[in-house]
């Protein structure tokens, strides 16, 4: 067979490209529901973690725990995830004990996404969880370590509000109530995180409905 002609080459390339396109397109379409299901599970797990709830091992229990304890409420133009303590014999009405909002932004290398939660009874930051982070291994990726995340816990909302946000300072120099030791050797990731977390915090604080001034929808 003569396979060197231009017309033959064009036909061959077209057919092969169509076949490859069909294969990749088919795989993408067929696998999308599996991928979406996984993404939902990742988000649900992150939400349970940031709200301080135990993450169940199987997907059925995960959905049940999520539906039982997490509720989304719209405050003005802001969706807030609420952790509710279901009604009991002693507490007739479900109680909202924590709020969580997502934060996102460009890190040093890639986009960072996560959730920050607030303890409504203690009026402090409850936790932060990253749902997507891919920074420099050994440096910016230390943000995902439990030790770093623990630095945020217990910081007073009032102190943050008065100081116009949290401040990630040089490791070992945090003195003020709104200051947190930054990640050593990752000043760019730390700065990005500071900006994202403060934006998320201020979205709540600058929303009249969240402060109880406008009521919720």
């Amino acid at each position, binding site marked *: *067979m003569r*396979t*060197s002609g231009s017309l*033959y*080459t064009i036909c*061959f*390339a077209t057919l*092969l*490209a169509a076949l*490859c396109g069909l*294969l*990749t397109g088919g*795989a*993408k379409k067929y*696998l999308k529901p*599996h*991928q979406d299901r*996984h993404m939902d599970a*990742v988000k649900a797990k992150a939400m349970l973690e940031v709200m301080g709830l135990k993450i169940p091992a199987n997907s059925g229990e995960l959905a049940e725990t999520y539906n039982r304890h997490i509720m989304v409420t719209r405050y003005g133009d802001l969706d807030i995830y609420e952790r509710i303590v279901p009604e009991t014999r002693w507490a007739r009405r479900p109680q909202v004990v924590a709020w969580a909002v997502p934060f996102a932004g460009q890190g040093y290398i890639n986009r960072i996404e996560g959730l920050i939660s607030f303890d409504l009874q203690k009026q402090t930051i409850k936790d932060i969880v990253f749902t997507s982070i*891919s920074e420099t*291994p*050994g440096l910016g990726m230390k943000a995902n370590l439990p030790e770093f995340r623990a630095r945020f816990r217990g910081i007073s909302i009032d102190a943050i509000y008065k100081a116009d946000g949290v401040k990630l300072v040089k490791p070992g120099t945090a003195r003020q109530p709104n200051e947190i030791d930054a990640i050593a050797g990752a000043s760019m990731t730390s700065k990005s995180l500071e900006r994202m977390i403060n934006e998320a915090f201020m979205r709540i604080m600058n929303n009249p409905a969240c402060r109880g001034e406008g009521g919720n929808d």
Partner: protein
Amino acid sequence: MTEQIHCGQCNPPGVFAARAGRTMLAGAWNENPIAIQILGICSALAVTRSAQAALVMGAAVTFTAIFTNLLVSLLRRFMPQSVRLIVQMLIIATFVSVLDELLKAFHPEMSKELGAYVPLIITNCIPMGRAEGFALRNGPALSMLDGAANGLGYTGVLLMVGSIRELAGNGTIAGFRILGDWYVKSDFTLSPSGAFIVLGLLIVCYNAIRLRAARAKEAAHD
């Protein structure tokens, strides 16, 4: 006594098996893509922070090499020579894309851990090298074997590097604790420079074993 007559187009019995054995041995050991040909080093260094990641990466390259070799071999008589490299690249890219989607769907944590290195298999020299060097000249069955052998050779080295780095770095292999709590974790082997040193030492050991085996074989012949 009857003598079997062969047409010349097909291989007599035993010849295919012998060639298959030689192909397997060459890909997995004698011409190991990492230890001998020093191919695919970039991913070998980057994804070997844990044995599990190394194994999945190895499986991904093996899958790509097998199916790329199969398709290139099937199309070899119809493939225009002037565009053969781009055709091979397209075939590799297709299988890598399918693989990437499969990983995202069924092993998403690993897909996240491997990051860009799965799509980067497209630029890995192993599938392209085997397609150009072997599949274009051989039948589908042998070509698939060659892809599998090279993939296994790559996986074996990756697994060793990953296991050593993880063991020295965290005291675990594939997440299972091997060294007790007394072991002080070391970030060095998990760092890029540590990866270079572990891989270098492994290649030294590999070549020392091969050399010794070759000398022993020569001595036996003498």
